[in-house]
């Protein structure tokens, strides 16, 4: 089965969520949480190999915080764009499914990239095959695959390449 190292990030995340749920933390709650975390750390479960890609360094944490702000800005900007499209009387849309290519190697990085693309209005990830993403785009303005890749993926990819390696 998978190694102990793979399960550590997931158990830390779940412990953090549990700590938020039971605030304010008292001593008995803390003891229960630590005991449960140790039990879950010992039991191997399938699918934990994905978290083996995560490695800690201060540069990655800094890039992660920068990525959160960049991502929130992209979400607000494109939400206003879609709001304009919905409210204008002619409904100026030109939808279709385009294929773009990503440079990311790790599967966790691809997962975060696909979720970011889906959360940004105007684009939904329909399918992933190895390094190609199929994206439903509400307003196709280019026929070229490289230009589409540049418009959708590369802004996120610049940060995620550093974070997930």
């Amino acid at each position, binding site marked *: 089965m998978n190694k102990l190292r793979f399960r550590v990030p997931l158990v830390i995340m779940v412990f953090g*969520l549990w700590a938020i749920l039971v605030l304010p933390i008292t001593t008995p709650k803390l003891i229960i949480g630590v005991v449960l975390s140790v039990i879950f750390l010992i039991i191997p479960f399938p699918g934990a190999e994905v978290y083996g890609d995560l490695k800690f360094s201060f540069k990655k944490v800094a890039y992660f915080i920068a990525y959160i702000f960049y991502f929130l800005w992209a979400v607000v900007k494109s*939400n206003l764009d879609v709001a304009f499209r919905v409210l204008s009387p002619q409904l100026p849309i030109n939808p*279709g499914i385009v294929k773009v290519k990503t440079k990311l190697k790790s599967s966790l990085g691809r997962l975060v990239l696909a979720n970011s693309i889906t*959360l940004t209005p105007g684009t939904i990830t329909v*399918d992933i095959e190895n390094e190609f993403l199929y994206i439903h785009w509400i307003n*196709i303005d280019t026929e070229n695959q490289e230009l589409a890749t540049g418009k959708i993926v590369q802004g996120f990819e610049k940060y995620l390449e550093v974070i997930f390696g």
Partner: protein
Amino acid sequence: MIDIIASVVILVGALFLLLASIGLLRMPDLYNRMQAGTKATTLGSILIFLGFIILNGDNWSKYLLLIIFIFFTNPLSSHALARAAHFMGINPILDRESEISPRDDLKTEKDTEAES
């Protein structure tokens, strides 16, 4: 003063929810309804929870948990729905009048694989 700012943030979030439902009514096909529907609700509900965090600071942890939860589950469910719709063979259509299918890289590629 601070509660007026919080309620204005909540009002903007509610307007985004209204926008999502208008988009759901006006858009011509399933994928575009998904675009308008599931994304604007994410931003709208997150703005509403943020407003309530400013307004009612006692329960900030629960609201924060809701924000994290919606942020992680909403793209997953809309991606699963889009994938299932494409698997069922629902084609994206261009606009309300014409039934011509627009560009669809995923479908043409699957067809050429089946032919060869």
